[in-house]
């Protein structure tokens, strides 16, 4: 009994020391073209000076799960190391003909569609491995989209802490209240990843979120 109590004490104390030293896996999830990579790039640029991936107006630009190790985020004297995981946009349909509208060649469009479908499968596989997830939504779009609901429902079922980011608040059509109304149980932070607007509030929310792990 006494040995057990001492054992538990050491596990708790030293367990927490090692837990705090490990990087926290922060995933970026959401539908295509919501600005996941733009936000991940902005954070990486702020704290490492490097970007994570390329961005494009053409949907499904990110077709592989991308990683950035040891991103040390500091905010108001607090410091935490993250492994950032940027995932391909999750969709229920992918049609190569949609890419032709962006003047892509047919062969390139087909290749992009094929890679994008695999990207969605990989993004779903990675859900289990996250410590926290930032769900990035386009604030100009209708949030009542089944993909958004399914992603957030899955994370809730896995008890993974979630922060919802309403991106593109620099655009006139942006409506954060609509996203807040759609997901009343979650914190919603409006940002513009493109212009770096409101990132202070985002970092503050991330530090609040990691307490829920």
């Amino acid at each position, binding site marked *: 009994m006494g040995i057990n109590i001492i054992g538990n004490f050491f596990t708790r104390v030293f367990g927490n020391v090692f837990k705090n030293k490990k990087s926290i896996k922060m995933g970026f999830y959401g539908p295509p073209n919501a600005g996941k990579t733009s936000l991940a790039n902005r954070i990486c640029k702020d704290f490492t000076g490097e970007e994570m991936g390329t961005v494009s107006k053409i949907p499904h630009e990110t077709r592989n799960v991308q990683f950035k190790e040891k991103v040390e985020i500091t905010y108001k004297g607090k410091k935490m190391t993250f492994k950032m995981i940027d995932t391909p946009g*999750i*969709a*229920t*349909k*992918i*049609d190569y003909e949609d890419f032709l509208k962006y003047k892509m060649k047919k062969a390139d469009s087909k290749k992009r*569609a*094929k890679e994008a*479908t*695999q990207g*969605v*499968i990989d993004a*779903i596989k990675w*859900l289990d491995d996250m410590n926290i997830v930032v769900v990035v939504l386009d604030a100009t779009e*209708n949030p*009542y*989209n*089944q*993909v958004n*609901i*399914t992603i957030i*429902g*899955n994370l*809730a*079922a896995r008890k993974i802490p979630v922060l919802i980011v309403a991106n593109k608040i620099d655009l006139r059509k942006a409506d954060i209240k609509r996203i807040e*109304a*759609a997901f009343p149980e979650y914190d919603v932070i409006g940002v513009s990843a493109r212009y770096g607007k409101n990132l202070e509030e985002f970092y503050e929310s991330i530090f609040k979120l990691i307490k829920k792990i």
Partner: protein
Amino acid sequence: MKKSTKKLKGFTIQLLPYSEIRSLDSDDRIKKILNIVLGNSIVILQGKLRTEEETRLIGDTMAMIGHIKGFKGIELAVISGNGGERLFGKMRSGILNAISGGNLGAITIIGPATIVKEIKRNPKKIELLLG
């Protein structure tokens, strides 16, 4: 000016009572739904799939694109009537769901993307745009 003469191809709507999938495991539920969708039918399912099954459905759909001719994915929407319930209402629907084995207050619509172009939804209504 020449008018577009593109016609909507034939499709059917299949109502699927929850009793049809209640006893099936996740693999068979998804297989059953995708089989109907691949037959150019829109499925209106009484109730809803489990969250992990919805994700599996998306993953399996992606795996089929490019392997089945003309298949471009699905459109999916779940309308749940349990949104604004108070505690007693939630408890009551929870008990009913436990007895029935699923959330029968919900309706799930799943259609092939070649037929259902978009499902527009807000908390109070749902619109299927066919094309």
